[in-house]
Structures are given as C-alpha cells and as structure tokens.
C-alpha cells in the first residue's frame, strides 16, 4: 500500500517527537509524581512509537494504537494537570494527525 506524502511527513515529525519526549519519561518532574509514573508514561511513549511504525507501514493497528495512546496520554496529562506549552502543541499535532488518519482510514492494511 502506497503511503500518502502527508502521513510520511507527520510520521517523521512523530519520530522526532518521540526522541524529544523519551528523556522526559524519567525527568525529575515525572519521577516526583509517583514511583510507577515513569514506567507508565514510558509505556505510553513506547506505544506511541509502535503506532508510528505501524502507520509508516500503513497498518490499521498502527492508527488504532495511535488513537488509543493519544486518549490515554491526554487523560493522564489532564489528571496530572500537565498543561504547559508541550501539552497544547502535542494536542494540536495529534488532533491534526488523527484527522489525516481518519481521512485515509480505508487505505490502511488490516493485517499485522
């Protein structure tokens, strides 16, 4: 399945955001929130990364994993009241990405 150019660009931006957000997983701020908080937020980053890989290969599970990890991450951020500039820019990027994914949803492959 040929990948649309816009999805390629967004995936590359997503990979870059993973590299940036990875060290934040175990930042002193997250560590202060609780013992298992870095592990939990790390799991979400890993899920997000897998989702980008899945979307890159035009797999439907990638799009679904992206949606799930986005909602979980948003709930977590709202619960922890982590609403800074990173939160809003992440929201704008994710919502735009979700719209693009939904537009091309039928083109995604159902297999693993």
């Amino acid at each position, binding site marked *: 399945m040929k990948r649309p150019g816009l999805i390629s660009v967004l995936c590359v931006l997503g990979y870059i955001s*993973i*590299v940036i957000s*990875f*060290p934040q*997983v*175990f*930042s*002193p701020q997250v*560590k202060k929130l609780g*013992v*298992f908080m*870095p*592990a939990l937020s*790390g*799991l979400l*980053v*890993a899920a997000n*990364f*897998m989702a980008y*890989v899945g979307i890159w*290969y035009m797999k439907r599970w990638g799009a679904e994993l992206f949606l799930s990890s986005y909602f979980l991450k948003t709930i977590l951020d709202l619960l922890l009241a982590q609403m800074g500039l990173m939160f809003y820019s992440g929201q704008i990027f994710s919502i735009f990405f979700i719209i693009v994914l939904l537009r091309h949803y039928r083109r995604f492959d159902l*297999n*693993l």
Partner: protein
Amino acid sequence: MLWLLFKESILFAWQSLVSNKLRSTLSLLGITIGIFAIILVFTIVDSLEGNIRGSLQSLGNNVVYIQKWPWSFGADYPWWKYINRPTPQYFELDEIAKRSKSTEALAYRLGGRRTLKYKSNAIENAVVAGVSYDFYKIKSFDLSAGRYFTRNETEAGYHVAIIGTEIAKGLFPNEDPIGKEIKIAGQKAVVIGVIKKEGESMLGVSFDYQVNIPFNFARYILDPRSMNADPVIYAKAKPQVSNAEMIDELTGILRSIRKLKPLAEPNFALNEISLLSQGFDALFSVIGIAGWIIGGFSILVGGFGIANIMFVSVRERINIIGIQKSLGARNSFILFQFLCESSLLSLIGGGFGLILTYFITLLAKSAMEMEIVLSGANIILGLSISVLIGIISGFVPAYTASQLDPVEAIRSN
C-alpha cells in the same frame, strides 16, 4: 498459551545472546553506562536531599533566626547593603522576651573557633559556642553523661562547659570527662555534660564537634560585636502561632528596639528554614536535570546500539525465521521473539548498571561515611527504563522480521 509463547521467546532470545557473547556484551554496555549514569545521579540527589532535609528538620521549622545577614542563594547577593548592619546583641534578647507574645522560647548564641586543652591533649580550631539558658528549648539534643547548665550558671557566667562526643574522645581518650577542668582559649572551665553522639550533618551543625558554654562566660573568649562570632537570636513560635505572625511581631519589636524610622530599611534579617529549603530545592533541581540530560542521552545512544545489533541479529537469522514461518509460526510470534530478545538484552544491561550503582553507593558509604541509598523507586525506574528502551529500539527490527516472506527468507543467504 501466552505463557508458552513468552517462555519460548525468552529461550530463543537467551540462546541468541549466549551464542554471541562478545557482541551482546558490547551492545549492552551502552545501556549499562546510561542506566548507571542516570540512576547514580538520582540516587546521590535523593540521598543528599534526604540528609539535608533531615538536618533542616532538626533545626526546627518554627524557628526564626534573627541575624545580620539574610539567607539568600544566587550570584547577585547585595552584601554591601548588609555589611554595616549591627550584629544582634544579648540585651535585645531580653527586650524581645519582655515584649513578645508569639514566641515560646528565645535563645542567643555566638560562636568561634578556639583551642581546647586538657593536660597534654589539645584540639585546635574547635567550635566554641556561647549560649543563653533557653538554648536547649530551641535545639534539641540529648546528654550521654552529666547535666545541662542551670539558669544561675548561664546568667552568672560560670566557667562550665558541655562538650560534644568527638571533643570528649579527643581530650579524654581514657577518662570520664565529667568534673574535669579543661582550658578554652586559656580560660579554665569544668566539664558538666557530654552531648550524645549526633553523627555527621550535611549542614555542618553537628554538636559532636562543639563545646557549649554559658554566654556570659563566652564574653571572655568571643567578641559579641565581631562579625566572625556570627551572633544569632533564635525565636521559636508558640504551637498555634505561624512563622509569618511571629515574624510580623518580631519586626515591630526589633524596629522599636533599634529605633528605626517608619520608612527606614530594617537593619536586621529574620531568616527561616524554609528559605534554606527553597535554595536547596533549586540546587537539587539543577543537579537532577543535569544528570537526567547526561543519562538520557547515554541511554538514547545505548538504544541505537541495541537497535543496530537487533538488525544484525535479524539479518543473521533470516533463514531460521523463514523456516519458523513455513512451519506455521505467526507474525506475532516472530515479533514477540525479537522484542523479547531486545528487552532481555536491555534489561541485562540495565541490571548491570544498577549493580554498578549499588557498588558505588557502598564505596561512597565506606570512603566518605556518607549515607547514600539506592532506593526501591530508583531500582524500579532503572529497570523500567531498560525494558522501555529495549522495546523501542527492538521494535523496528522485530517488526521487519515478522513481515518477511517465508519463501524469500529461506532462499536468502
């Protein structure tokens, strides 16, 4: 079923790691160093923070320090504004005691370093503190032998002294110090008490190395007007009174004692422990962030190393993957197998990093007598980062392996 899949994947992963020992060791080194760096910094920061907070707690949260210099952190300390301020005087303590309604206890202290002597034993530069009678109400300490000063002794300036454990050990290695006469900067004093061992303090206020004498005796040894004596009046708030309320009252009293005009700048500082806490918070935050950045990038580099080695591993086992798939292995099994391998590799690397950190903490404990503890929270953090980096760095190679066509995979060299 899932357990069997997991067991088989772990077994495959283990065989692969064991058959390529050198390669596995080199690739997990990155993770080992990364985890070691980040967890060591977090461990040191946590331990230092714990020690300092403990020391601050012992100083008392409801105590205000009336001093010449305000406590402040940072480079732009305007010392020229404070240099000409007068030092707190003993008569001010009496005045505050008469007028204050919010304080439970007030004490005066001045200190300096002097030589102590007993027969042929001598301790140079020992901390000598002249204190008022209520000092024990401000700073809690226990006596291992003897007694505290009486009010009469402090007010009349009797030549008596209460010494710390280390001072007692230094001056009286084989004798009971109680009742013995020592010399403090040439002045005779009888030892009436020994303070119970307190241990090292991060803030350098341990009583173990101090000699406490009545203030009116200390006048002969230390100059209360000297800046070096660092005179301080301690004010402890009553149980229902907040520090802010007490500070308000003390400000008014001190302005009145020092006859300051309504618009004049105060010529005294009212310092609180919370000021120190805030300073240390900022300091530890900077250290934590520095360690996090250094460790974070080490781990990231380690992750790239693992991803690289996993791509090599997939390439080497391409025939086996083909055979497995032709025998009915699902894509998810191949994916899981390689993910397990990368996670296991990373977990072993992280485990070594944690072991290394543990040995460093033991070394620090024995070499510096410093309490550095590798906490459970940091162990969980280290292990979860390891698994996480293993999953992230191994996912792309594992997914590539799972997508291989069995026929092409078997035929490839």
